């Protein structure tokens, strides 16, 4: 479904990704872990089409389409969703109006009929229940005055509404207490399916107790330096990243 090959990217004069390769099959959940500054959030931003980054080499193909040719809007229409590490507050735009506009904009670009008011509200209700989002939060301005946990739940709520093929979760666990973490994980898990893949970016293993990945990758120095099964996350939690980064360095030498 997603194939990243030898990706190099920079922001300004700073090289951040230096030959990253990664493949995700349909229905798989991959976790990306790694030390601070290794390029995890850059990868998420590039997948979603943020224009601050310049891809200098390599390719990304999504369902056979060259993703780098698409802008942020077109990527969402193609089925990519990024749950932001820092969701943006938009005063004056209600959550509901925001979602209705987004959903119908996507449907229009896919040449589908707009959702009826009744169907839309039924969907809002079902998706809000999934992440236990209060009715009041649905009517408030997007993310304005939301707590950290509410913002992240709102991201998963939007994900449930938009039903992407590939969801990228960028440190969705940061700033969450145990209860919120459980709610968010429950939302994600109930969306897992044969046609939907997840790329879960996180610092900590604890999220992966709740969202159990099929594969775990270590991103360091702008490249995937090690991959393994779900047990790799536990090993990293115990031993840190240094042993992998050092082993990789030795191999390179």
């Amino acid at each position, binding site marked *: 479904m997603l194939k990243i090959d030898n990706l190099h990217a920079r922001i300004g004069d700073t090289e951040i990704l230096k030959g990253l390769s990664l493949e995700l099959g349909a229905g798989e959940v991959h976790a990306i872990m790694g030390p601070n500054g290794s390029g995890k959030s850059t990868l998420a931003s590039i997948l979603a089409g943020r224009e601050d980054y310049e891809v200098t080499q390599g390719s990304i193909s999504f369902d056979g389409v060259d993703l780098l040719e698409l802008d*942020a*809007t077109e990527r969402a229409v193609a089925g990519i969703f990024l749950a*932001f590490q820092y969701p*943006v507050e*938009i*005063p004056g*735009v209600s959550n509901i109006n*925001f979602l209705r506009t*987004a959903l119908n904009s996507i449907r229009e670009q896919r040449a589908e009929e707009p959702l009826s008011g009744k169907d839309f509200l039924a969907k809002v209700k079902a998706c809000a229940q999934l992440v236990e989002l209060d009715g009041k939060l649905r009517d408030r301005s997007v993310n304005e005055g939301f707590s950290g946990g509410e913002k992240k739940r709102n991201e998963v709520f939007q994900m449930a509404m*938009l039903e992407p093929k590939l969801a990228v979760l960028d440190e969705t666990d940061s700033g969450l207490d145990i209860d919120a973490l459980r709610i968010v994980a429950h939302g994600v898990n109930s969306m897992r399916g044969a046609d939907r893949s997840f790329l879960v970016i996180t610092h900590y293993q604890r999220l992966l107790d709740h969202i159990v990945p099929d594969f775990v990758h270590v991103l360091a120095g702008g490249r995937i330096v090690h991959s393994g099964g779900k047990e790799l996350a536990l090993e990293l939690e115990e031993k840190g990243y240094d042993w992998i980064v050092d082993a990789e360095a030795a191999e390179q030498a």
Partner: protein
Amino acid sequence: MNEVATPTQHAALAARVSEACAAAGLVGEPQAEALEALEALDYPTTRQERWKYTRAARLLKVTPTASAPLQAPPVVVESLDALRFTFVAGQHISGETLDEGAEGCFVGPVSVALERYPERLKAWSNSAFATQEWFAALQASAPQDGVCILVPAGHKLQRPVLAHHHMPDGAHVAQPRHLVHIGDHASAEAVLWSDNTSHAEGMMNAAITASVGNGASLSLEIIQDEPGTVHHMGHHHFTQGSNSNLTVRTATACAHWLRNDLHILQDGTHADSTFHGCYLPNGDQFVDHHTRIDHAHPDGQSNELYKGLAADKSTAVFNGKIMVHKDAQRIEAYQSNRNLLLGEQAAMYAKPELEIYADDVRCSHGCTTGQFDKEALFYLRSRGMTETAANNLLVQAFLAEVLDGFRPEIRDHVHSVFARRLGWI
């Protein structure tokens, strides 16, 4: 940058304008003070603080041609149930006068009011600007027809008034005067709508003079939707009595070159004034909102909110003066001005002016000018919105605070004008 208007130039402008207005038809006698003021006052130049960013020299070129054909313009906000009056280039052309007799409500053209009830207009109808500003003096020295709303004490005007002033194709001048008098404990709502054809040029020099009695209430919505290249000067003056309530909302939907002077005088205690405005110049348009509120008595409140966007190479000016007089204690006055620049060559000049001579007051002002939040735009696009849909939503959100105060049909109209002009629908 300095412009020098030789006396012959602006005297010649005054002569051209007065002649054209007189040929088309004036209402009432010119104010004697206005004629004197026109001689005595300086023509505005950028050397004067009040005109620092506003180049009035370009108006010296205004040359009216033949008088306008009096054809009815297209109806505006058809869905609004209102007492409707239509004026074309300073002349009344349609609208049925509401006349309940000498003791009752009157809503109709100023020309008719002057014939029927000259004594009811005498005491208050002179524009206070007319002795202070050259263009206001010009207006008062050759006044033309506008709407007159007289609501006697204790009455409530049941339907809103919609006065529509239209400028047709060609170089015309119009100097309408609108008069509003709300008696003690009376109330009324009105919409003043000015628009143009896209081939209109010349000058619109309009005055609104309104007084709101003790315990009375007036709500006024001013819509300026003027394509074409007309220069628009507005002199809007309001006087409020004790415990009165005034709301003035101004939407400059479209204007080639426009200056609004809004002045509110709280001439009694416990008066409450709300004045909001929005503007969105694009291309090389120019929009200037100058406001002033005088808190002359204790316990008054005022709430001012102006929001605007300047796109392309356009210029917007906001100048908000709050004057709290000595002994006007326990005043609460709030002013907020927020601007977005949408073009690299767009300019915004914003100046709050607070003069406070009382010691027990609460005043605040905030003024910001910034750009679109790129992060918000990316967020919306990452959810599948096109750039157009995302921009539209962000502008709507930015202006909502101001636009949501208008009647829904007017709000929707203004928003669609904005969106169309920016190419977003």
